[in-house]
């Protein structure tokens, strides 16, 4: 029997008691220096009151937004949260990227008052692909944003089809009061969001300059999910994202409510783009993060903000001031070297980073360290490196340095990509040693790139933080 105990004021005693315990757990973990306490309190809370998430989310005045997708969800979620904070709303947000159910619970616990009020007007929750179903069931969001579906870690999720099927089930069950915002340039997402009860809104690009000539190797076979024919593109932008159509049955990209165009990429610093809403007035926005993939993230975030009713001025202000999430792309001054760090976690993300680094000169200009680990959060299978188009690096003079638990796999991949052997340098696999050897190899006063996989990025961050070069991420 799971009785609910309520006080005379109607407070849920189980909720109140569980919140207090979970909050203490979070504080203790932070005090002990065991990381940011970003998800353990969620585990504690879930044990004590399994309905806590639903109860707290129901108390939000402005409801909740859930963001999912293979790439860009952390950045997009942060952009949305930044816009909401300018309203100003207090935002419940799993900001540190802890994106399983327990991470979302922990975010709510941290914000909530001890009396069981959610402590914010609105929530923006990033959902791991495998957690979307459970998070939607528990949080009951007003908006679900689906960014993209790329090949990521098949050893963790099984096959892409499996995720698509699960998501399709999630979307089908949403009621008419929910809005589903979908990247219309992704044919897979369009198919799974067809004929649902919820309201569907699409965004996409209509971009003249930044196009791909051919489908990258990392892109999954773009097949019409209705008739099985190969899809064609009027324009292809990132991976299999673009203005697609089926030459056989005539299916095509749906009408876009939010359209991005005239994208200007400003190196590894920032970008600008135009967004038009419903084919009407065009808004020019600058965004403080680089690369075409971030144009998609900004477009997605703008679509969410507009659907919540935020004026364009606030969106523009938040985007202009936006800076990258921890480790995704950032500049660090360390021992007199100017290091740009960019997270690489799957083929599409890696391709886009390489595209950004080689855009100006057509080759790699600066020394670059690639750090590949094969722990759970990286994907234990390093096969994905063979889907990245490293052939881009065969041009240019920048030397390549490899490290990480699978550094030797990376070095071998570069060899088969046609990078000259005298440009490939194997560093020690262990990270602090690999980092030290790399920094030693870069002359003082010079710039260099570091491209770590997820846990390699955590290790680099810890080393750099311990040595005073960057802040620990949970303080951001």
């Amino acid at each position, binding site marked *: 029997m799971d009785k609910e105990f309520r006080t005379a004021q109607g407070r849920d005693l189980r909720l109140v008691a569980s919140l207090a315990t979970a909050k203490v757990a979070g504080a203790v973990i932070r005090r002990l220096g065991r990381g940011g306490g970003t998800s353990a309190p969620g585990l504690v809370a879930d044990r004590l009151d399994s309905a806590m998430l639903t109860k707290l989310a129901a108390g939000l005045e402005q409801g909740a937004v859930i963001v999912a997708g293979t790439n860009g969800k952390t950045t997009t979620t942060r952009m949305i949260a930044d816009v909401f904070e300018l309203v100003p709303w207090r935002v419940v947000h799993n900001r540190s990227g802890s994106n399983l159910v327990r991470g979302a619970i922990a975010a709510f616990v941290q914000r909530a008052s001890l009396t069981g009020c959610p402590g914010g007007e609105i929530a923006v929750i990033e959902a791991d692909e495998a957690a979307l179903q459970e998070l939607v069931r528990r949080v009951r969001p007003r908006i679900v944003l689906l960014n993209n579906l790329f*090949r990521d870690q*098949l*050893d963790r999720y*099984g*096959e*892409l*089809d499996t995720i698509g099927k699960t998501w399709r089930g999630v979307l089908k069950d949403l009621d008419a009061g929910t809005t589903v915002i979908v990247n219309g340039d992704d044919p897979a997402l369009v198919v799974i969001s067809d004929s649902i009860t919820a309201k569907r809104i699409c965004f996409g690009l209509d971009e003249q300059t930044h196009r791909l000539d051919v*489908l990258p*190797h990392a892109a999954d*076979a773009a*097949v019409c999910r209705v008739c*099985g024919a190969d899809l064609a593109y009027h324009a292809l932008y990132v991976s299999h994202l673009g203005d697609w159509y089926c030459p056989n049955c005539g299916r095509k990209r749906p009408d876009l409510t939010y359209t991005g165009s005239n994208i200007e990429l400003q190196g590894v610093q920032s970008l600008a783009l135009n967004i038009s809403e419903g084919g009407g007035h065009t808004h020019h926005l600058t965004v403080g993060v680089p690369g075409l993939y971030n144009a998609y993230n900004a477009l997605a975030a703008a679509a969410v903000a507009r659907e919540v009713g935020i004026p364009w001025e606030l969106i523009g202000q938040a985007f202009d001031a936006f800076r990258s999430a921890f480790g995704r792309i950032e500049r660090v001054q360390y021992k007199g070297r100017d290091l740009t760090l960019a997270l690489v976690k799957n083929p599409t993300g890696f391709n886009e980073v390489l595209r950004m680094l080689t855009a100006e000169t057509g080759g790699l200009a600066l020394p670059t360290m690639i750090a590949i680990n*094969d722990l759970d959060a990286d994907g*234990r*299978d*390093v*096969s*994905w*490196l*063979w*889907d990245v188009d490293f052939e881009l690096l065969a041009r240019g003079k920048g030397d390549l340095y490899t490290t990480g*638990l*699978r*550094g*030797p*796999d990376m*070095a*071998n*991949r570069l*060899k*088969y990509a*046609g990078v000259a*052997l005298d440009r*490939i340098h*194997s560093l020690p*696999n262990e990270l602090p040693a690999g980092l030290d050897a790399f920094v030693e190899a870069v002359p003082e006063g010079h710039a260099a790139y570091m491209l770590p996989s997820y846990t390699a990025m955590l290790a680099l961050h810890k080393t750099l933080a311990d040595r005073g070069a960057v802040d620990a991420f949970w303080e951001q």
Partner: protein
Amino acid sequence: MTTESPKCLVVGWLYGTKMNIYGDRGNVLAIAQRARWRDIDVEIREIGFGEPIPDDVDIFFWGGGQDQEQVAVSHDMQGEKAEQLRTAIENGAAMLAVCGGYQLLGHEYRPHNGEPLRGVGLFDAASTAGPERFIGNVVVNSRWGTLVGFENHSGLTWLGEGVEPLGKIQVGRGNNGQDGTEGAIYRNAIGCYLHGALLPKNPALTDWLIEMGLRHRYGSADLPDIDDDLERRAHETAMQRAFTTR
């Protein structure tokens, strides 16, 4: 004075990008690069749906696909086309098939739901969808020494009596998790569950495929040694990671 005309090899990539689930194109890249580094020209030909098997392919590669593609591919690889592929192998062409391609080279594949998929029948083997997914690093003892790769499959493959496996499992689950075998060999055709990609960090196997391809075309082969320092290190690291993680 005579100058020897450069040697060439034709690689036939079955269903190309339709059956390239996870880095398996690295195998095609390894064959092509290691041949080119010996001044052998390589032509890579994709063999797609509805297209016959060309009779001048020296080395075939067939990768894995997702369920939906696997069904479409099995329907395409029937009748005359399957016969052409069997004939090519009987005539000495080399082949590597990984995961889905390997399963479809047996007699049949029985999925969890739906009709059994009929295979090419090149290997005396049959596969069924199993209850558990085998995921992780693999080390196999084979006639090419140790082979390292990464398995990720729920299909269980059983070899017929007398069928030579690719090797014996040292680390990992292999064909079916029970009999200690991994993969299958018939003439110069190899099937297995090893991703990784397999060939770039197992250069002895790659060179054997190239050698068989050259013999198929020229009747003889002479492959000079090349620098394998990075390949060897990748191989050793993969072995260490396999011992550490499973």
